[in-house]
């Protein structure tokens, strides 16, 4: 199967790693990386090993992780959605606007989630209906969605969300287990089943490996891609609800740069950026790794921008290492 995928690609520079065994070892590699960072954190800071610290840690990645789950599916089909952070901005802004008109908590959530789905559907329509490349479409809608947020808000902000709404971002289900974490884990299970144990998931992989062959074997390629863009919009809408509730205010610059973190999570999780390979477990572990790194460095008073050096290097090193190792093995053989 890997032979077919290797020659059927449009791009010749694909990674040759999505062999099944490599995927298996990829996840174990990620677990090792996560454990190493966890141990390093425990030694580096006396404040790390504490139930509440670890609980705070999860807030670092749950919102991005929720989007990464859906983004993984989009990337497996060979597309990409760079507009997710701007969807958050627009959904959050419209929730704030609804609040000004006296919306109650259920309405606010409905607005946030609904706007997310609509934005995703718009992306999906442009990509599948008009047959445009998703990377350019979503760079365009990235400007458009956040641009609308700027038009509505300018340099103002919306505040005053009700406590029942704030619970979504700040509430705890039990002891130190936050609502955000529970939602992320539940979503992870749902996406795991969807991708690895349903016909739908199998079709997603089929599209990523060879969209033409999938089309000829009866897979409705465009419809599935459209659904996936809507799904990414939905998850971005949910993330908008959580993030707005956690921050308690909306500015047009909310969630700026999230899209790159989300893509980093997905790629770090072993999803091939060229499509056709990946697993939800890998993405979930990658989300934890990003959370561990940023939180651990935060405890050590490392500024946020320096942390990005670590996440950026992590992305390149974790992808480059297996390739270098393979090259080294081939040279010896």
């Amino acid at each position, binding site marked *: 199967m890997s032979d077919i995928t290797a020659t059927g690609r449009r791009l010749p520079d694909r990674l040759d790693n999505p062999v099944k065994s490599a995927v298996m070892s990829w996840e174990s590699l990620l677990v090792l990386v996560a454990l190493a960072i966890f141990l390093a954190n425990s030694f580096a800071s006396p404040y790390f090993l504490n139930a509440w610290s670890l609980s705070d840690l999860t807030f670092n990645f749950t919102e991005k992780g929720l989007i990464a789950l859906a983004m993984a599916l989009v990337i497996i089909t060979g597309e990409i959605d760079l507009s997710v952070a701007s969807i958050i901005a627009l959904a959050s802004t419209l929730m704030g606007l609804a609040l000004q008109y006296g919306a109650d908590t259920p309405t606010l959530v409905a607005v946030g989630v609904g706007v997310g789905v609509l934005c995703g559907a718009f992306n999906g329509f442009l990509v599948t209906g008009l047959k445009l490349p998703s990377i*350019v479409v979503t*760079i365009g809608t990235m400007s458009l969605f956040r*641009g609308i947020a700027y038009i509505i808000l300018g340099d103002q902000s919306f505040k005053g969300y009700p406590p029942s709404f704030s619970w979504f971002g700040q509430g705890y289900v039990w002891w130190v287990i936050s609502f955000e974490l529970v939602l992320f884990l539940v979503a992870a299970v749902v996406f795991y089943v969807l991708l690895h144990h349903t016909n739908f998931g199998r079709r997603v992989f089929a599209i990523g490996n060879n969209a033409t062959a999938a089309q000829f074997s009866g897979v409705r390629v465009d419809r599935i891609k459209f659904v996936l863009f809507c799904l990414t919009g939905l998850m971005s809408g949910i993330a908008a609800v959580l993030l707005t509730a956690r921050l308690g205010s909306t500015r047009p610059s909310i969630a700026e740069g999230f899209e*790159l973190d989300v893509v980093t999570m997905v790629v770090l999780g072993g999803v091939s950026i060229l499509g056709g390979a990946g697993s939800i477990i890998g993405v979930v572990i990658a989300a934890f790794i990003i959370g561990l790194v940023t939180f651990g460095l935060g405890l050590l008073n490392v500024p946020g921008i320096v942390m990005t*050096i670590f996440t950026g290097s992590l992305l390149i090193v974790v992808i*480059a290492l297996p390739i270098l190792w393979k090259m080294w093995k081939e040279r010896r053989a």
Partner: protein
Amino acid sequence: MNRLLKSRELWLAMAILAVLVLVTLRFPRFATPGNLLTIFNDTSILMMLALGQMAVILTRSIDLSVASNLALTGMLVALTNAAFPMIPVPLLIAGCVLVGATLGAFNGILVWKLNIPPIVVTLGTLTIFRGLAFVASGGTWVNAAQMSPDFIQLQRGVFLGLPVLSWFAIVVAVLVYILMTRTPWGRAFYAIGVNPTAAVYTGINVGRTKFLAFVLSGALAGLAGYLYVSKYVIASTESAGGYELTVIAACVIGGVSIAGGIGTVGGALLGALFLGLVNNALPVIGVSPFWQMAISGVAILLAVVLNATSERSKGRIILKKAEVAA
């Protein structure tokens, strides 16, 4: 095909003219030669970056790290100037090009030798380069008082009626035009974009060609680093934050196909000028600058729809029979 591309640029030029005419109808002073030259000068940095990005996109790659490269080289040159004001500015500029090219070469090596997809590599270096700019400066700014007068004034000097900054853009545009249309390298950029497999059979080293495109993009980003810092007379970690998307937008509006192999120097320049013109016109006609982002979003979407329709009409004729047969 050539005629098709030319008509595309004509369309874009007409769109630019239309914006100009519309604004000028209400504000006659907008279209004075002085103001138009100002717009050109303000867009110079974007034009140079768009030309580098075009070379990369032609080879079916993408360089998301240009703005971070700009911020890092800009910060390094400003720090050097603040610490050693006696170093002549032309030497500093050469250093910028060298540093930028080295950063681009780092991207290129990872794409060439390790076969990592360009979007992953440059997503990583996007954060790394900007982070390094913070580390180099310790989070502080380099401001006008710390820069030498030569450093600030060089690009503001006027030569034959144009600021030196504009001349930088013109010279770069001419050089890239010659590279693209009159050299084997330029042809190789197009060849591997149109059909990488065929390019290999004609003896083109695909990996090395991509590497060269990244070096070119990096070198221009490095040059832009000095120009940006001395134009705005401040070097900070946030210089040109998010600018990589504006650069890509300029390319897309200019008709450069994200699928590779299609794009011209004139198109990329016009795409950049269009964005520069819109940004300059908005405050004049009294539209809040907060509209800018949404408008460029709509412009990108319209451009990509236009690109797709013109690209599609090329292949259709051959495929029609097959489609009927299927």
